[in-house]
């Protein structure tokens, strides 16, 4: 109890101390800005601050003032004078002017370089190529402009977890508009993408497992130049990460056939926002098979599909069996190191043979599954050896028992003899 009180009080004291320190620091910073910022002080006084204003906003942290964007004269205490158009006061930009408003600086590398030498300055140009940009130019006030995604007054760098455009926050940022079914109806767009995405492999990886390697919306659609990925480019989009799959697929005859028939590349079988972890029965001729959507019994593709699935399923089953054996060996405390390595190899083979499905060539798949089968069989064999070794350390035991038995019998007879002699 006493230690608790002690801890509590020290923490409180420490926090107070640190807070004081932090405030002092920000004070220093504001002092650094050369002029007195009357916009800020006055607007604070009359409690007329822009919505969502944050002191930690990247622009404010970089020392920019209200006037840096909105114009006017911050040194004047007279409202009239400070906000006179003669002093360059621009006021609140109209929605359709926002890209240009931000572009004043962000499209100017000479200016931006001062702050971040490596920064890109093509966002506005890109933006006008995007659907958002085109529509905005055409006078549609519903579409996203810069502030829709970045906010106006609490902007953070993209790597900052507080940012609306931080990777983990992107899906919900896009969803602010794209999840609005009312709004999306006007454009004939669905509004359940986030819902689908959250349940997909990518969504689970990103949102549940915080795997920052998993794609968010912008990784496929682009950000400033956001567009639906075109039919032809979709396999390139997926191929950015799933490179082998793309390479294999593009080399097949089927890729051409897909293109001719306006099929959607990867999406055709895997779907888009809701893409699930592929199952082995997606290939083959069963009811979950995608192949039979086009291929009928008897054609070459049908036969290939059947063969490929059979091969992979066989390897998968053998791999599972080997894994179970491995666990048993482990549990028994026998030597599992080598088996573990074999299983790692086998897993690699299984993954590769699944990737090779995209060649649609059973012969290529078989090369890997055969390797995999050999390795898993070896793992099973080794496990069996370990397990039987575990059960048959018995010969040595039998020999020892024999020796002990001889001792016991001899001793017993000796003792009996002694007793008899004593009685006699």
């Amino acid at each position: 109890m006493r230690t608790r009180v002690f801890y509590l009080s020290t923490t409180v004291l420490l926090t107070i101390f640190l807070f004081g320190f932090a405030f002092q620091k920000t004070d220093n910073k504001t002092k650094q800005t050369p002029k007195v910022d009357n916009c800020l002080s006055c607007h604070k006084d009359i409690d007329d601050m822009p919505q969502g204003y944050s002191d930690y906003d990247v622009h404010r942290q970089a020392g920019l003032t209200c006037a840096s964007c909105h114009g006017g004269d911050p040194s004047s205490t007279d409202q009239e004078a400070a906000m006179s158009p003669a002093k360059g006061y621009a006021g609140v930009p109209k929605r359709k002017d926002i890209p240009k408003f931000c572009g004043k600086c962000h499209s100017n590398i000479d200016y931006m370089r001062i702050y971040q030498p490596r920064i890109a300055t093509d966002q506005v140009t890109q933006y006008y190529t995007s659907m958002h940009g085109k529509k905005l130019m055409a006078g549609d006030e519903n579409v996203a402009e810069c502030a829709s995604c970045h906010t106006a007054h609490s902007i953070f760098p993209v790597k900052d977890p507080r940012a609306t455009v931080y990777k983990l926050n992107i899906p919900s940022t896009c969803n602010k508009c794209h999840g609005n079914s009312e709004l999306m109806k006007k454009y004939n767009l669905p509004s359940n993408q986030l819902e689908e995405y959250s349940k997909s492999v990518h969504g689970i990886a990103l949102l549940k497992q915080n795997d920052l390697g998993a794609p968010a919306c912008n990784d496929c659609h682009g950000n400033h130049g956001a567009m639906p990925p075109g039919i032809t480019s979709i396999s390139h989009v997926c191929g950015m990460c799933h490179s082998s799959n793309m390479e294999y697929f593009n080399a097949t005859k089927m890729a051409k056939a897909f293109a001719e028939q306006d099929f959607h590349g990867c999406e055709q079988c895997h779907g888009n926002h809701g893409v699930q972890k592929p199952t082995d029965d997606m290939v083959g001729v069963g009811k979950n098979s995608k192949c039979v959507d086009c291929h009928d019994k008897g054609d070459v593709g049908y036969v290939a599909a059947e063969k490929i699935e059979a091969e992979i399923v066989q390897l998968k089953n053998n791999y599972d069996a080997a894994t179970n054996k491995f666990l048993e060996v482990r549990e028994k405390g026998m030597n599992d190191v080598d088996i573990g390595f074999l299983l790692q190899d086998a897993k690699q083979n299984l993954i590769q043979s699944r990737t090779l499905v995209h060649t649609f060539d059973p012969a290529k798949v078989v090369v890997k599954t055969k390797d995999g089968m050999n390795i898993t069989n070896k793992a099973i064999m080794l496990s069996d050896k370990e397990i039987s070794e575990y059960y048959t350390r018995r010969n040595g035991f039998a020999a020892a028992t024999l020796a002990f038995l001889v001792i016991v019998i001899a001793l017993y007879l000796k003792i009996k003899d002694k007793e008899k002699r004593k009685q006699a």
Partner: protein
Amino acid sequence: MLKNIGSKIVSSIDERYDLTPVRNLLQHKKVPEHRHSVWYYMGGVTLFLFIVQLLTGILLLLYYRPGEDSAYESVRFIVTEVKFGWLIRNVHSWSANLLVLFAFVHMFSVFFSKAYQKPRELTWITGFIILVFSLAFGFSGYLLPWNELAFFATKVGTDIVGVVPVIGQPLKVLLRGGEDVTGATLSRFFGIHVAILPAIFTFFLALHLLFIQRQGMHEPEEFKNLPEEKKKYIPFFPDFALKDFLLWVVVFNVLIFLALYFPWELGNKADAFASAPKGIRPEWYFMFMFQSLKFLPAHILFIEGELLGVLFFGVAGLVWMMVPYIKIKHRSGWKFQPLTLIGIFVVIFIVIMTVLGYLL
């Protein structure tokens, strides 16, 4: 020839150190023979198992490495890589369990034959102390492989210590070497198991054996009442010793049989952040206490149930240790002596609680 060399060595030692006391002891010590003589062997078996523990323990020490990220690995190494490592480890684990079992059997046999009565009070007390230390041996050794089951069992076990008022919490922290069961606990238990306990244990065991040698074997009531010529004895050496030895060989064989056919699983490495696995339970000899604590309601009157249970077992243990000094008048009308009745009750209680612990 061998005999000659042997007797030469003995006589040369005798010349220098005078072995008369030893010789006297060997020649004159005798063991009564009667219906209940078997029980005389139980202490000997326990002693044998303790020796096995010492030897296998020393062997394990050659490869075992305490530490959060080496303990489990080294035990796994012992059972997989080291030749016969599995045997040594399994004999050590089995022998530990049999040791406790035989210590209990021995204790109750001594109890029911009333061997603890004057003049053997101290033999009983030292005996009880070594039993408690055997349990401590078991408890501290259980954690050493640093596997999941042991980790969580130790957590639960040390938590129980924490319920004792005033000293409970500090004691728990002391045992664990910190607030939680961590690598620090492991180091601590290791030290306790391989250094502290063996030293203390050996000391009390030596006292125990010394007392026995000084006083000779206890003769039960019915044997004492026999007429002098009907009393049968066998010399301790070599007759009783041979029988003792025979039994040890048998026990040893059973031990390696168990080690081979029913090895102790190593399980998975402990992970402090994993959720507790199913079926965490203490070693069987703690089961009766564990189960009784579980049966107690959360609150009895205004005291925590668990606390009451722990206190009860503490007091009961003390009383049991002091049994030689407890006198209850035996009325002639009673069929059984009250202490015997209590002993029977204790045995039944322990058996039932243990069985329930495994069934429920």
